[in-house]
Structures are given as C-alpha cells and as structure tokens.
C-alpha cells in the first residue's frame, strides 16, 4: 500500500516539475501525513477524500425511532435524545442554512416520533425530507413535517393503525387512549401534507394489503398521488429544492 502511494506521489511530481512556488510546499505537506492517507486507502479503497464545508446539514433517521423505552440491542435505533438537541443546534447555528432529513425508518415510539416531527415542522430554517427505503408507521409524520418532502421511487410508506399490542407501562390500554394517540398522528399528517383526513383514515383501515395488519403500503409515486408526499425524487432533487428554499428565505429576509 505504501509503495503504491509513494509511486503515485513521485509520478505526480515528475510529470509536473515546474510549478508555482507553493507547489513544493504542498508536496511536503502531503509527505508529512502519509499515514492518514494510507489509512483512508485501506478503509475506503480510494485516495482522495474531499474536504468541504457545508451550509446544509443532514439529519438521518434510521431503524427504530427510540423514545421512552430503551430497545434491546438487536434493534438499530435513532434516539430522540440525540436528534432533538441536534435540531436545536442547527436552528441556532448561523452558518447552517438548511437541513436535509433522510428517512429510512420502520417506525418506533409514537411520542418520540411526534416530538421529532414537531421540532422539524416548527423550525425557521428551510427543511427538506427524503424518504429512502422506508418511512413506515411513525416515520410518516416525520416525513411530512419538512417544508417539502421527497420520496425515492422505490421507497415505501406503511400506513396502519397504532396497535393494541403497544407497550404502555402503568397505563390501562383503553380504546379511548389508543384512539387519542391515533388522532395525534393523523392530525399531524393531515396538517402537514395534502392528504385529507378521510382519505388517510381509509388507507389506514384498508384490508387485504398487509399480511398481519390492516392498512396500506404506498410505494414511491403512490405516496405522491395521495398527497402525502410532495414529489418523487432523489438526492439531487432534494438538494436542489433545499437550495432554492434557502435562496427564497434569504430574499425574504432582505425585503
């Protein structure tokens, strides 16, 4: 590995022997830290790691959204005690101009999910969400919370009711309690997307689509068709939209 590295450096130096004065200094700097470059090579199989400063921060919500209960270690989780302070920091940092929220979640704690969704929805800075893979169950409110939402063509969202088997410690699981919980989720989604409450409830209680449950799976375009998500797209679409929202906000601040 080291040989490859030094050969390459040598070649680069020999093909361009006459350069500006700062060139040798640059080479010297490279030679001062070959170790970190070799490490990079070993771990990623590539030489150059670009260094950049970003005015856009990226929040990834993966696996289970973990809230009031610590889940066993086989669950990959995103914890609300990590996400919430990060959102506060992003909102306060003057250098950060927008947030991209990447979702690939199977759902999780209702109140943690709603808390994250409310935080995103009430942020002053432009937010764009992108659902990749899955944005199921309580991932729905988080997905629609952003100013503008994207879903990858292959990503899916499962809309289904909060189950009776949910775990509530010390609270009798009355029908009313579940119903109230459900209302909080439905109201949030209806408020932050273009879907109507009737349509959402209909999708939620549809039979014959899910093997173990009632509900609906919306894949990519379907989620857009029902008005739940704004657009089908990928990373470049989401970034483009976020940049245009940032520009718009700057213009508004000047006026």
């Amino acid at each position: 590995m080291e040989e490859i590295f030094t050969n390459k450096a040598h070649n680069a130096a020999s093909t361009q022997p006459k350069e500006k004065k700062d060139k040798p200094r640059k080479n010297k700097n490279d030679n001062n830290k070959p170790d970190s470059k070799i490490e990079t090579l070993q771990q990623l199989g590539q030489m150059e790691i670009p260094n950049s400063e970003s005015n856009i921060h990226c929040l990834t919500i993966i696996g289970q959204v973990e809230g009031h209960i610590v889940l066993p270690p086989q669950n990959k989780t995103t914890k609300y005690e990590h996400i919430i302070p990060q959102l506060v920091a992003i909102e306060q940092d003057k250098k950060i101009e927008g947030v991209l929220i990447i979702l690939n979640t199977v759902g999780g704690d209702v109140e943690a999910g709603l808390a994250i969704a409310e935080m995103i929805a009430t942020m002053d800075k432009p937010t764009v969400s992108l659902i990749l893979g899955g944005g199921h169950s309580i991932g729905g409110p988080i997905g629609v919370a952003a100013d503008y939402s994207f879903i990858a063509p292959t990503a899916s969202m499962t809309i289904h009711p909060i189950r009776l088997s949910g775990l509530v410690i010390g609270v009798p699981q009355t029908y009313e309690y579940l119903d109230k919980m459900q209302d909080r989720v439905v109201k949030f989604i209806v408020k932050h997307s273009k879907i109507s409450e009737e349509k959402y409830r209909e999708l939620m209680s549809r039979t014959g689509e899910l093997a173990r449950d009632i509900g609906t799976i919306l894949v990519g375009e379907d989620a857009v068709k029902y008005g739940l998500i704004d657009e089908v797209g990928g990373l470049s679409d989401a970034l483009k939209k976020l940049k245009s929202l940032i520009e718009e906000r700057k213009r508004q601040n000047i006026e």
Partner: protein
Amino acid sequence: MLHTIVPLEVVFSNKYDDLPNQQLIKVDGVEMLVEPSGFAEAKIVRVLSTDPAHYLNTKFQPGSNLKIINKN
C-alpha cells in the same frame, strides 16, 4: 408506545443477549458511538453528527480506532 411495522416479538426478543459495550463520546466536538477494542483503544461504531463534513473526516471513519488518553 410503539408504532412500527416490525412485530413486537422481534423488537423485544431476547435472542440476542450479547450486549455491545458501546459508549457515547465527544471527540473534537463530534459526538460518536464507540466500543472498546484492545488496550486503551476504542473503535468508532457510529458518528452522530448532522454536519456532512464530519463524515468525510478520515479520523472519524467508522471502524477506525481511537486512542484513549487519560488526561489525569
């Protein structure tokens, strides 16, 4: 209360009882999840940052080792 597509018996199964000994630490202002790997070393498991630039920092790549220096 959980609202998830993963069956609750999978979420709460006790099949995997090897608890990873992971800890949350902050290195140069970047929060990360690490687990011990050998003497006074910790392996980075996951970086918890919203700054995309942190993920390009070669020092903080998941899988690489950090030396633990006792400041006392």
